[in-house]
Structures are given as structure tokens and as C-alpha cells.
């Protein structure tokens, strides 16, 4: 299935010469970036610009989300194309260090030094970020741990913390140094609804005055947080606009029925016993309010098979 209209990708501003910011207030950009892993194309000539606020990055597994994030975080070198973060090209070692100093990166499912306390771990990463004034660094570590709600757990060893707490420690580590660009790779994985809510609050606050790129499978998070959503699929940008517009893709294409509609591209039984279908509705169908997820699924044209609701 192909969406009827694919919003055009905004034109990418020129990446050189770089000033303090990329043109138009954008703080990070990739242009025609291609990354291959042993012959497999992970990113195929991707161009994208990021500006202040929270941008959601959606895409199925293997779409290239993590590759894009690692490229922007200067953890990965593209095979071709240009990258600029905060107006600096990471190809230059000095510039790269400056980028990293102003960038917070939360990797996907990161490991932890289990014998460290939460404070020691964040402090260690703060040292790697070259925050050398000890008192200021310790204050900063306390601040970020408090920001993620771990003020009282900072002395506990990481191996004694729950998965959700560790994920918060990871976010705290990414926040150290008050970075201007935050790259978060599935930060809400493993969190319970309450923790996710707290994350949303936190990330929403962080999006003010910063550039946040949030990769997630949680479309609700994107709908709640992001002013812009980018959908990656098979290494290419399939969509780049507001969440509302992505929901709009499914406008008039979601309906309820008492039986599974064979004409639907996808459908699942809801808790109320009715079926929610997406695709091309029949004449006179009872239409439903589309969600971001509906738009996303229609956009990608593939629906997971295991959506039968319990």
C-alpha cells in the first residue's frame, strides 16, 4: 500500500560553509548520506535537517534509524555524503570533539558498568566529556540524576537498579553537560507507563531550546512529544512532516466493523469486540478517528501480522 500523497522532504540547505548553526536555524543536517554494512545499504542517500524542538524518528526494524542516529552522533562514519552538527563537520578531529562536547547521545539498549554506582557511572562519562572542574562536574551529575528522578538512588550500584532506573541513568548520562543536541535511541524501551510518562515530561522540557532527535517504536510518544516526525524505511526517508499530517494520511481510511473486513490492509479486534480496520473502507463504513500509528502503518504499506488484540 502506498499513501496517496507523500509530503515532500524539505529542501536541504547547503552544508558548507558552516557557521555557528546550519542555515535556517537548523542545528544538524545530513546530505546524501549513504552507509553500508558489508554490502547491505543501511542508509541510502539520506538528506535531513534538524532544528530546535523534538523530532521523532519512526521506522520498522532495520530501517536505518540507529545508523542515522549513530552517524549524527559521530559514532559512525558515512561511506558517502556530508554530515554537519552545530555547523561543524565531524570529519575534522577538532570539530568532531566540539560536536561531541555539545551533543548528548543515548545509545540503543546500552550496557552499563554494573559495579559502578549511578553517580560514578554518570561521573565517569562526564569525565569522558571533559568536564574537568570536579566540583562543577559533581554538581552537574547530581543535577542530571535529579532531573531523571534518581536523586535518592545515585549511591546505588547499577546492578541493583531496575531496568527502568538504568534507562534513566542512561538518559542522565546523555544529559550531562547540558548538550544542545540530544540524540535518543529508543529511550523508553523497557519502561512502564508511569516511567514513560515521566520521560515524556522530561523530553518535552528538553526540547525547549535544544534539538532532540528521538528514535522510537512508540508512536504515542511521537504524537505526544514531537513537532515533527521523520519516517525511515529501508534506509530512505519516507516521510518528513508534522505528526498531524502523518495522522492525516489515514484520514477516512480507518473504520470499525463487527467482523474482520477482508478488504482491509490490516485489522484487529479491539477490547470492545469490534474490529478496527485500516485501508480502503467500504461504502457506508463507520469511520474512526485516525491515529499517528494508523498513518504510519499506511505510509509503510506493511502491517505486522500479530496485531490481533487480546
Amino acid at each position, binding site marked *: 500500500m502506498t499513501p496517496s500523497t507523500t509530503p515532500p522532504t524539505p529542501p536541504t540547505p547547503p552544508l558548507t560553509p558552516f557557521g555557528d548553526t546550519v542555515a535556517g536555524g537548523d542545528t544538524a543536517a545530513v546530505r546524501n548520506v549513504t552507509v553500508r554494512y558489508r554490502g547491505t545499504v543501511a542508509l541510502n542517500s539520506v538528506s535531513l535537517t534538524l532544528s530546535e524542538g523534538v523530532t521523532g524518528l519512526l521506522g520498522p526494524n532495520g530501517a536505518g534509524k540507529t545508523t542515522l542516529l549513530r552517524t549524527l552522533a559521530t559514532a559512525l562514519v558515512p561511506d558517502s555524503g556530508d554530515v554537519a552538527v552545530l555547523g561543524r563537520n565531524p570529519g575534522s*578531529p*577538532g570539530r568532531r570533539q566540539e560536536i*561531541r562536547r555539545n551533543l548528548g547521545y543515548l545509545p540503543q539498549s546500552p*550496557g552499563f558498568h554494573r559495579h559502578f554506582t549511578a553517580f560514578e557511572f554518570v561521573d565517569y562519562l562526564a*569525565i*569522558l566529556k*571533559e*568536564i574537568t572542574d570536579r566540583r562543577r562536574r559533581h554538581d552537574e551529575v547530581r543535577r542530571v540524576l535529579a532531573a531523571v528522578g534518581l536523586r535518592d538512588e545515585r549511591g546505588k550500584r547499577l546492578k541493583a537498579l531496575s531496568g527502568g532506573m538504568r534507562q534513566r541513568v542512561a538518559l542522565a548520562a546523555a544529559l550531562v553537560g547540558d548538550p544542545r543536541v540530544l540524540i535518543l535511541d529508543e529511550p523508553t524501551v523497557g519502561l512502564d507507563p508511569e516511567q514513560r510518562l515521566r520521560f515524556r515530561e522530561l523530553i518535552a522540557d528538553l526540547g525547549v531550546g535544544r534539538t532532540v532527535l528521538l528514535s522510537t517504536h512508540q508512536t504515542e510518544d511521537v504524537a505526544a512529544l514531537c513537532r515533527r516526525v521523520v519516517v525511515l524505511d529501508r534506509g530512505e526517508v519516507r516521510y518528513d512532516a508534522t505528526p498531524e499530517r502523518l495522522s492525516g494520511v489515514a484520514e477516512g481510511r480507518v473504520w470499525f466493523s463487527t467482523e474482520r473486513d477482508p478488504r482491509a490492509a490490516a485489522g484487529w479486534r479491539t477490547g470492545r469486540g469490534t474490529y478496527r480496520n485500516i485501508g480502503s473502507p467500504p461504502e457506508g463504513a463507520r469511520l474512526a478517528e485516525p491515529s499517528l500509528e494508523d498513518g504510519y502503518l499506511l505510509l509503510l504499506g506493511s502491517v505486522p501480522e500479530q496485531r490481533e488484540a487480546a
Partner: protein
Amino acid sequence: MRTAWERKERKERKGRNERESRGDVPGAPAGAPRSSGPPSSGRLLPRRWAATADLARAEGVRLLRHPALLGGLAVCLGLWVLDAVTSDADRYPVLHDEDRYAQLTLLVLAAGTFLAVHLAVLRPVRDEATDWHEAPVLEPWRRTAALLLSVLPAAVLAAVLAVARSVYLGLRPGAVGSPSASELAAGPAVVLLAGALAVLAGTWLRSAAAGPIVLGLLAIGTVAGALSPFASWRWWGLVAVEDESRASLPSELLHRPAAPHLLYLLCLAVVLGALALLRAGHRGRAVQAVAALALAGAVTAGAVQLRPVPESVNEARDGARLAPARDQQCTREGRVTYCAFPEFAERHRQWARVADGVLRWVPARDRAERYFVRQRVPGTVTSADEVQPPPPVDRWAADDRRAGTPRSVPVGMEWGSGSDSAHDDTIAFAAAFANRVTERRTSGDSGGTAPEPAALCGARGIVALWLAAQSAPEAESGLRSTVPRSFGDTVEIESAAAPGVALQRTDVETVLRLLDRPADDVAAKVATSWAELVDPDTPSPRAGELLGVRAPSAPAPADPEEAQLCPRA
């Protein structure tokens, strides 16, 4: 661990260099400056070094708290405590020997440091936390530098241990000599070297299993070097400590290349550290230059330490062994003059306590005007592996005559007893001194020490050994521990310095019975019958009668040679 960007830059640099070397880069000015060293604006450099220092501090603290290092420390301290409790070596230490023996113990700490540092290097891999290190502000080679610097606290800890032990031993009342700074520093240098090797191994082989394997190979190499038939080979290893049973020497005769060995160890540590930095992505020419210089230093120092012992030192050693009088200083206490090498001069207090204990029960009229005690270097001083030649008793006698100390009683370089030692220095000296005291003086007797163990036979043997054993508590315990170590019908009381004395086992048993009695009672009987007791012709049973104990009868000799020990007994 290099980051992706660094790997790319390295690849590009390599390609560029290859193209330049082939002349494929037109327009590249011949003298154009090329990037060398970690690139950065000068403004950032202090901050980077400060961050490196911060990281080193953090890693150093973690290292000092690591179970592997704490385990090594506990074993070190445990071994020293065990030594202090079970051996006399700590009571009468020779400080210029103990300094190098401490290196052996500190090897355990070095092993603990190696394991702890290796695990620290591999922490991101072991904890699957490499993601956090993929885009660090601090360059990866600086983390390696920090890990190298983090070993310094462990080396300082080793230095503190070495110095503390030396001070502790130095404060012992029986301590003699003075430690060598180079020997003391070798232990901490080995810890430093172990840490540098751990960083290199962790940078090169990114598996936690590699640490114990490398450590095992190192241990095998160290043991093989120590057991090598080629004495000089041991200097290529981490420690070069001779067998602890080797006799002590005056420090000037040791001639150990401790300073070159220390330099060798430090240079090796620098080489390994520099290799680790290069491996971690540092591309500064300075590090390469330092590595090259340190390698040259290691080779040079390694070669210097293998230089043969100068002839002058060998001559001095021979002089100390054959005719030590000219090198010794003498101290007179009462009737006894004690001559010792200057560093060992304080030992005379321990000798005097025993000698006075022997003389205490000798009737005043039967004491000689003067007795002489002279410190003797045992047979060989060049290597513990060589066969010990017989003592040069004729040369000793001549030396004594020249020095005016005729018939001096030999005493060894060590003092005290050790449970692992084949001999007991206290009872050996006490027996030798008692032997001299109970000798019949004849005019013109210019004899000295016999080349074979002196046979103490009959009543004289019994009274001499009793005098020796009751002279000091450790002399009695020394005798009691010696008896079970002797086989057959003869008990030999060996000395490290000179042939000891030999007695019939039955006579020794008589002495042990006498020791069970009040010393005053026995002493009174000894004083009463002194002349008869020290008469070489008085048989053992008669001594039993005079001293009031039943002397066990001598068994029929099973071995004809043993029967000759005391043919008239």
C-alpha cells in the same frame, strides 16, 4: 579502542602516505607540514590533560579498590606476617638482603595489579558498554593514557610496602646492613611494568581470558628464569633474586646490578605504555620517539646488568672469605673480642649474649684470658648453584695469627634460626664457642678451626654441649630441633660458616636430660668436676655419674665409619 572516525582517518592517512611515497600525489609540497600528534586547538589542551588526569584518578581509585589488587595485597601482607611469626629471619634481618627478597613477595601484588588493570581496560567490552565509548569527547588514546597513569597509585602502594617493611626490619634490634634504594624500587617498578603490560594486552587482545593466560605465561617465564642454569638469565626477568638460603655478604661484595635492572624495568614499562598508546590511536611522533628511546634504554640497561662481576670484586670476595681480618672491625666485651665486617658489627651483641651464657658456668680459674670470635664468609659467594668448597681453615689460621686473634671461633653471616633452614646459627655458634672454652690449653697451640666437623666426645662433649645449649633459650630450642634432623648415631650441629661439631647421639641424649634439670644444680656439679669433665679421656658414663644423670649406653656401631667419631668413648 579507536572510534569509527579515527579508524577512517587512520586508513586515509595510510593511503595518503602510500600514495605520497609512490609519488602519486602531485602538488603535495615536499616540505609541507603533516599532522602529527593529537590535533587540537591549544586552548583545549590543558582541559584534555586535566580530563585525562581526572580519569586516571578515577581509574586509580577503582584499581586500589579492586578485589584482585586487594587480594594481592592481602597475600603480600600475609606472607610477611607468616614470615615474622614462623621464622627468625625477621628478628635478625640483613637489610641489604631483605630489600631484594621483598621483590619476590611484591610479585603477588604485581599479579593482582595486572589482573585488575586488564579488567579495567576491557570494562566496556565485558559490560557490553562500548556504545558509551563510541563518541567520547576525550580521545580513546587518552583513556589508555589514563589507565596507564592509574597504575601509579598501585606502584606507590608497592613502594610504601617495600619501604615500610624495610623500616620495620630496620627497627628490629638484630637488624644489620642498609637497604639499597634501587632494590627497594624494583618491586614498585615491577608493579608499574605489570600495569603497563596489562594495558597493552587489553588494548591488543580484547578478551578477558587473555589476562590470566598472559599472566600464566609470565609466571612460567619468571620461574624458568629463576631456575635457569645460567645465572645471568634471571636478570632478563622481572626479579633477579638469588636463593634465599645463600649466605649474606657485606653489601659491597654483592655487586648486584640493581640500578641497571631498575632502569631496565622502567624502560620496559615505558615501551609497553607507549605501544599501548600507539595501539589506542595516538599518532604523535613524540610517543614513537619515546618508545624508541625507551627500547634503546631497556636494551642498554639489560646489557649492562649482564656484565660479568669485575675482577676486583671477585678478589675482594676471595679476600673476605680467606683473610677477612683486614676488612673487619673488632669489639671487645669482657674476655671476648668479636670481629665482624663493619656492617655486621652490631651483631656482636647477639654473639656476646650467647658467649656470656656459655662462660657463665665456667669456673673463673678455668677461663682463658681472652677468646676471639670472627665472622666468616662461607665457602662460595659467587653463586648459590656452585658446590661449596671446604673451608680454608689453614688460611683462616694464618689470618688469625696476623691479626692477633688466634684460634678464633667462627661465626656465620646470619643469625637466628629458621624453620626452613638446615642449620641453626645460634646453637652452631654456641657449640663452637663451648668447644673452644672446654679445650685444654696447651702452650704454643696455634690450631684453629678444623676442616671437618669437630668431634666432641665423652664427658667433654657432654659438658660443652650442655654449656652451649643453656647459654640462651634459642640455643636450647636450636639443639632440640637439630636432633631430629640428624640420622644415625651421630648428631651434627652444622654451621653455615664453618664445619660444626659432631657428637654421639647417646651423649646428646644425656645433655637433653641435663637440660631438663635446674641449670643451677647442673652448673654446681660442672664447676665441682670441671677438670675431670673437660678431660678428653673422661668417658661419657663417667660424666653421667659426675652430673647425676644416667647416661644411655652407646649402641654397637652399625656403621664402622660412625664408630670412629669417638673411638675411646
